[in-house]
């Protein structure tokens, strides 16, 4: 165990940081006009959940490393999600010449 892991950080503060970051990401995803910004806000929400997973990894009756492994899976899935999402955005931008969500409310082009 590295020396850095020995610092005591209050659990409530870590959970609060995750909650605030999640809500900032939620507000961005709901209110932003540019579709890339919406995608980035979703990434912010995924990061908030990762902080919670790593926090809870140290707690419980038998603290083990499962939470960190879950965080690694989340990071992988987020990478896959961002690759497909950006490919979709590129395809949309090529066909419709726009990246604003409000121009994307019809199914025809």
């Amino acid at each position: 165990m590295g020396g850095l892991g020995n610092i005591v950080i209050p659990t409530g503060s870590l959970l609060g940081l995750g909650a605030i970051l999640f809500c900032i990401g939620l507000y961005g995803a709901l209110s932003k006009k540019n579709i890339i910004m919406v995608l980035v806000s979703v990434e912010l929400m995924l990061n908030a959940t990762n902080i919670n997973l790593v926090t809870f990894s140290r707690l419980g009756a038998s603290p083990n490393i499962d939470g960190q492994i879950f965080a690694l899976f989340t990071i992988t899935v987020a990478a896959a999600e961002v690759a497909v999402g950006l490919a979709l955005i590129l395809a949309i931008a090529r066909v419709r010449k726009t990246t604003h969500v409000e121009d994307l409310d019809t199914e025809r082009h």
Partner: protein
Amino acid sequence: MIAFFLVSLAILACAVALLSARKVIYMAISIGGVFIGCSVIYFLLGAEFVGIAQVLIYAGAITILIMFAIMLTNHESTEPPLKWTARNVASALFSFLLGATLLIVIRSQVWPQGDPNTDINGGVSNTMAIGLTLFKSYVIPFELVSLLLIAALVGAVVLANEREGR
């Protein structure tokens, strides 16, 4: 302890800068700040491998990928100035209410404090412990995730490919 609050402050400042950035390219830089701050949090929690993976995947790959997407689409695009439309007010109100509820619930609980002297790695280094657990208990999810990654890779190539037939 002090480091944790400084890093949290930096993360939240970067996130707010992300929300208020007018040009989309500035937003890509501030999201990099958020990702690096999160990796510092993981280091402080003793999760070295997750922190390194965060720097490599998020701050390295995903930020660059987002910048590429911005450059390939409309890189001059700016976010219009904030107007208090019904949608913005509703989303701000909803996010604020959710955040307030979460924070009240978190404050009202007594959380167990992780004992910093427990060795969650089982006597080996963090990376080794993660590898052992991954290949002992989580083999099937690991293989499924590799399948997911290859599917996403092929899908991204197919989607972004320019179709000649149109």
